[in-house]
């Protein structure tokens, strides 16, 4: 058995892969946060709770209706998007004229409610979720064993991120979105239904979170706490990357996931805090964030 930098390659590449996967979730969540913030001026604290809801929806679909992973990959984000529409229509829309703080406080309250409800119903211990049959097993790459499911998560989430980038930067709908971010009144004057766009943006953003939740379900257990701690790390990712650029969010998300994975190999004590340390350094050197515009 050869070693790389004093670490067995299986451990190194294993953590690297796990880092990529975490990075994929950071990227998908921070992307949703950035799109929602850009349009609605709301920092969606409920994002982590909705990610958790997505994972739970997949688990419930399997337990109650016998629907497996692939249907859940579509149905669970749709269900969470529907919840998002309700939240936006009944609560968030009353806050657009107010200070941004109130959006954060409201969604924080929602996160507590959602998380609390799931914990009361299903307890704090995690529920296991099977890897779909098609993606079970591993493949031998010579230097490491690659679990098929993990490879799928990295590829699929990268595709989703690039798809989102394409939708926003290269399509007509995306152009409306970007225009409405810059000047909603003018876009409305051109006859585009801006309130409906706001609703759909929120629904789309939280659907991304739910999709990440479904993908995470077979890797981590499905538990009510899975979103609470994650959202704080995603906030740090957003501060590091800045919310100005879509590609920036994706790159920052994946990059920080990998750095975190490497820290787990070489300096495990710091793996929980490395992202916050990077945030401190970025704040010192480039306060607006790596891809941020100085506002």
């Amino acid at each position, binding site marked *: 058995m050869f070693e790389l930098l004093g670490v067995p390659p299986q451990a190194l590449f294993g953590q690297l892969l796990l880092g990529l996967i975490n990075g994929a979730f950071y990227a998908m969540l921070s992307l949703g946060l950035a799109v929602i913030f850009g349009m609605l001026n709301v920092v969606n604290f409920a994002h982590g709770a909705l990610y958790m809801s997505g994972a739970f929806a997949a688990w419930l679909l399997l337990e109650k209706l016998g629907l497996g992973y692939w249907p859940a990959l579509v149905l669970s984000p749709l269900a969470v998007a529907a919840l998002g529409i309700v939240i936006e229509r009944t609560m968030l829309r009353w806050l657009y004229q107010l200070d941004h703080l109130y959006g954060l406080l409201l969604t924080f*309250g*929602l996160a507590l409610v959602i998380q*609390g409800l799931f914990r009361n119903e299903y307890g704090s211990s995690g529920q296991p979720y099977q890897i779909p049959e098609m993606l079970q097993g591993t493949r031998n790459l010579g230097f490491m064993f690659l679990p098929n499911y993990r490879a799928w998560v990295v590829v699929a989430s990268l595709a989703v991120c690039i798809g989102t980038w394409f939708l926003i930067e290269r399509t007509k709908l995306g152009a409306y979105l970007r225009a409405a971010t810059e000047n909603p009144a003018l876009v409305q004057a051109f006859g585009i239904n801006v309130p409906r766009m706001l609703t759909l943006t929120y629904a789309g953003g939280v659907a991304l979170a739910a999709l990440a939740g479904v993908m995470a379900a077979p890797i981590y257990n499905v538990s009510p706490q899975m979103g609470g701690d994650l959202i704080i790390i995603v906030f740090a990712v957003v501060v590091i990357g800045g919310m100005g650029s879509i590609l920036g969010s994706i790159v920052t998300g994946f990059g920080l996931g990998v750095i975190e994975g490497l820290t787990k190999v070489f300096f495990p004590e710091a793996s929980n805090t490395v992202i916050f340390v990077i945030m401190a350094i970025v704040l010192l050197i480039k306060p607006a964030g790596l891809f941020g515009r100085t506002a």
Partner: protein
Amino acid sequence: MMAHSQALTSTGTPWHHYVAFAAMAALLAAAPFQVYPVFLAKLLCFALFACAFNLLIGFVGLLSFGHAAFWGAAAYASAHAAAKWGLPPELCIVFAVLVSAALGAVIGGLAIRRQGIYFAMITLAFAQMVFFFALQAKFTGGEDGLQIPTAYPRMALGVLNLRDNFTLYWFVFGIFLLGFLVIYRIVHSPFGQVLKAIRENEPRAISLGYHVDRHKLVAFMLSAALAGLAGGTKVFVAGSASLTDVNWPMSGEVVLMALLGGMGTIFGPVAGAVVLVSIEDFLAERAGAWVTVIQGGIFVLCVLAFRRGIVGEIARLIKKPL
């Protein structure tokens, strides 16, 4: 925005503040004869914590979502000084205040480099870092937390035996009043007027020649130190410091206290803390697991329909700032 109608040119203390303060002090002085004093002492710690938090959000317009870091770090510092060094309570609390002020200087110094909503996210992230530190470091006792040993002589200032529930309450009451008056003094000082100017219009404050960042940092450190005063004192009420003190739900709780009582009012955070801690205490036995859901519900209701908070609404009714 918040209900800030405080006249920027006020000179001297308006008479209705004396009345409100006297009413509050009288209520708190009478309370231990009706209610369990240790519960009240805990309540006062939270009230001071909420006032310290409100100093930032209410008077500088900075939303710190990481105040659990200062409360928790102070609790650990105070418990450590008592359990390992055997310092008397008052010195433990002084040490706790110094620790949280230093932590406030570091976190505040970094967080004020960004504005608005980012400020909230940065403080939250750094507080989570402090949480992980408390989880992993040796001296914090990890999941167990730090207990004050039973052999520790709980004699404050050499004469106050804190084992006696009433003495404990008067001790905490004194600290609370001290902290409250310090905050009142800060808010109504020339320094406080500059803070309010920054809250109202930061670019204008800069163009008038004020060192906005320096003012923000000092305000942040003061808020952290006062939160530390509350957290360090709380250890002698609860008998321990634990991970709950430093975790993010605690940061949310203090935000909710200020919101419910009235952000930007002097007396609001005290009212918010009284109501919220009482609700939680009432529910803890009856609805255990539902406390989080109910807290979240109060958050949502306050933001949607009750943004002035309890004291803010009263102030609007009597048309005087409280």
